[in-house]
């Protein structure tokens, strides 16, 4: 093979790579547009839930199934009292709060015991799903619906499993330590279970970013939008993910993810499948995929639904350093899930999940991010080599930047028309501004973080990289 042949091969490789990247990005965009249209249709035709908690309570107070809210806590000494008080104050007819102290090194347990007047009790564990030892159970003399489980340190999945094992209610709601649940969030999330005839396994809800909001006593006092750009970019991302992607996926029965920050599940379904897995960093995605797999393998009718209303607020990483670990972890978790359930991919036995849901995950999480990054290099290279027209570079940018902006603004429009949780026109403008800017740098950086997650996956890293958070109550998050 001479130099000329090598050049021809290299040129062809670059050309085909460029075209492949182009196709992948275009396919992602077609799916996103479809999702946006479906979400707009769902919002336009949906029967809205009650406007306020009073109305919800009047309608569903007698119907709501009892719920156990499982809150894993690790080194939360400073915030645990406010968080638990906020959970106890949630508007719901019958709910129990199960705090799982996951081997905290600080005085989380002592704080709980003192502030909630707790005494040791011998609560029976119904199912042992956790891998670590339970050190004790405590109940409050003042709040009969509060239980604290003290256990050795595991990870969030292990703590949540311990809580699920102690829950006695038909429904469990698993949240993150830093989740702030809307006062009527449980009622809203439980609503689909009231219409259910026994097939509904889980319900997810929209999660919004709490950075910039005024938080007092573990509850949102005033909704706000952070001044810093990184949290604002994430608001746009969350709106896109929840209001467009998940609403559409739920409508087409292909919902693959219920966020770890807030998810309501049928307790017996979780126990039946063995709870969260401990050996993945994306346990929330893996759990939902496993529910799908389990139910379809057993040929049982089931449903997993999504409530578009905001049920929960969460603190997002305030800077790129925090974001890096989080996004890499999400990416790694998605790949681990895909690897573990690879049998489902394009397998008609798993219906829409195998034929649509899993391939979509592959497109979004396996080939999507590297293709876009690669495209930024190979498309210009192909143009320099003279095998592609310069207009192709513009078209590629159009597909990424222009389309991305359009999709983000479309999701924002959905939010404004349907939910209206952005407090003022000024805040709406600032989110819109972020939707424009995010395509020039943030989007690409995010893709690099995801590549890092792909690298961690191939190295089989099991290290949990904590996401540094500024904490609620600090100014200008």
């Amino acid at each position: 093979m001479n130099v000329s042949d090598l050049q021809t091969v290299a040129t062809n490789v670059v050309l085909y790579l460029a075209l492949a990247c182009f196709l992948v990005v275009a396919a992602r965009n077609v799916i996103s547009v479809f999702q946006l249209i479906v979400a707009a249709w769902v919002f336009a035709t949906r029967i809205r839930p009650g406007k306020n908690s009073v109305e919800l309570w009047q309608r569903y107070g007698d119907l709501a199934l009892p719920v156990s809210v499982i809150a894993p806590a690790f080194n939360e000494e400073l915030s645990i009292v406010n968080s638990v008080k906020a959970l106890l104050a949630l508007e719901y007819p019958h709910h129990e709060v199960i705090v799982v102290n996951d081997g905290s090194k600080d005085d989380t347990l002592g704080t709980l015991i003192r502030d909630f007047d707790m005494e040791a009790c011998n609560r029976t564990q119904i199912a042992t799903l956790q891998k670590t030892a339970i050190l004790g159970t405590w109940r409050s003399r003042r709040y009969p619906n509060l239980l604290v489980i003290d256990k050795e340190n595991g990870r969030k999945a292990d703590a949540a499993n311990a809580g699920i094992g102690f829950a006695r209610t038909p429904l469990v709601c698993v949240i993150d330590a830093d989740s702030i649940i809307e006062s009527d969030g449980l009622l809203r999330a439980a609503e689909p279970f009231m219409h259910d005839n026994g097939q509904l396994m889980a319900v997810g809800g929209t999660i919004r970013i709490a950075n910039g909001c005024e938080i007092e006593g573990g509850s949102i006092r005033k909704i706000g939008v952070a001044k810093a750009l990184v949290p604002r970019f994430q608001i746009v991302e969350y709106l896109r993910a929840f209001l467009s992607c998940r609403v559409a996926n739920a409508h087409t029965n292909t919902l693959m993810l219920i966020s770890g920050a807030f998810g309501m599940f049928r307790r017996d379904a979780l126990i039946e499948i063995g709870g969260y897995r401990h050996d993945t960093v994306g346990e929330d995605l893996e759990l939902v995929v496993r529910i799908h797999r389990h139910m379809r393998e057993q040929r049982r009718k089931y449903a997993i639904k999504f409530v578009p209303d905001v049920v929960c607020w969460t603190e997002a990483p305030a800077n790129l350093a925090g974001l890096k670990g989080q996004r890499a972890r999400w990416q790694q978790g998605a790949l681990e899930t895909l690897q573990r359930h690879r049998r489902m991919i394009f397998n008609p036995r798993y219906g829409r999940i195998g034929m649509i849901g899993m391939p979509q995950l592959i497109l979004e999480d396996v080939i999507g991010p590297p293709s876009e990054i690669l495209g930024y290099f190979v498309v210009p290279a192909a143009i320099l080599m003279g095998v592609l027209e310069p207009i192709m570079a513009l078209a590629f940018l159009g597909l990424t930047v222009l389309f991305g902006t359009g999709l983000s603004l479309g999701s924002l429009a959905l939010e404004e028309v349907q939910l209206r949780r952005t407090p003022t026109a000024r805040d709406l403008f600032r989110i819109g501004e972020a939707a424009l800017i995010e395509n020039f740098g943030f989007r690409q950086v995010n893709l690099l973080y995801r590549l890092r997650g792909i690298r961690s996956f191939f190295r089989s890293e099991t290290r949990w990289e904590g996401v540094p958070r500024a904490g609620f109550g600090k100014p200008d998050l």
Partner: protein
Amino acid sequence: MIAVHILWISAAMASGMAALFGVLLFRRWREEAKARKAGHVLAAITRSYLRRVAGQLDNEASPAWTVDQRLAVVSHIRLLLRGGERDRLMQMAELDGLLRATLRKSRSWRAARRVDTIRQLQQFGSEACIARLREIFTSDRVGAVRLEAAFALASIKALPPPRETIRILGMFQRKSTRLDSALLRSSAPHYVDQLNLLLADPLPHAKRALIIDALGWSEDPSVLPTLERASRTDNPELRSAALRAAAKLGHPSAAEWVIGLLSDPVAFVRIQAVNSCAALGLRDAIPDLHRLMEDQDIWVRLRSEQALDVLEYEWPSDGLKGLVA
């Protein structure tokens, strides 16, 4: 050529969305600007209605107030008023023609809009509203809307007799949900006799259990013999429903057969019996509950533990004890 098309499509998509977003942003900005002025108007409308409700002279009313503004105020202050005052407020709203607009909207082609108006009609609760709600309940083409109308009627105690409700919603032709159960329960105080008559029909056990369960919400102790008979049937669903109903009725005369069912051969009936003992405060059941702490079914053991908590534990207040029960 394709590249040019892609570029155009991308640009068109982005421009379209940007334009839509711009319109929504402008709309929000205008609404906020208006809201600052509208605050005074809404306060004036509120004062006006409160004066009229109290029977005082109102010379602040203005024909410039729109139906939407008045409806917003009425919906808000309705939550703050009680009893006769609330009824008078809704009468004023009807006199002001607010009901006309709502009734018109209830014929919208969009199911979601019809549901919104059902909720408003429920607030008014007058004869005209009940008539329209019944019309929606019987003839709307969307099941979810009919169900919503049923709930509205139930909340204003105007639900038709249970046999009609069951027929219209096709309750016995499909798997039952908690909403079906709730509707029958809300009918129970007004239609005890009709529910009893329904029990004479040849029904599947699951549907019969729904009726038995609803009888517990009748607030009428005369249903206790029916419940006791149901507690002696061969079907565990019926026995369990009878226990639930007895617990809700809270009448002590059910104690004997409720305690008897603690020895039922079916685990979920024993669980319900344990729950009922706790709800009825049957301290005579304590020895049996201790025995059930050794039951082979974990849920029977757990519920017994909880029931003993309620019956034996010294809770600081009855309120807390009630919460646990």
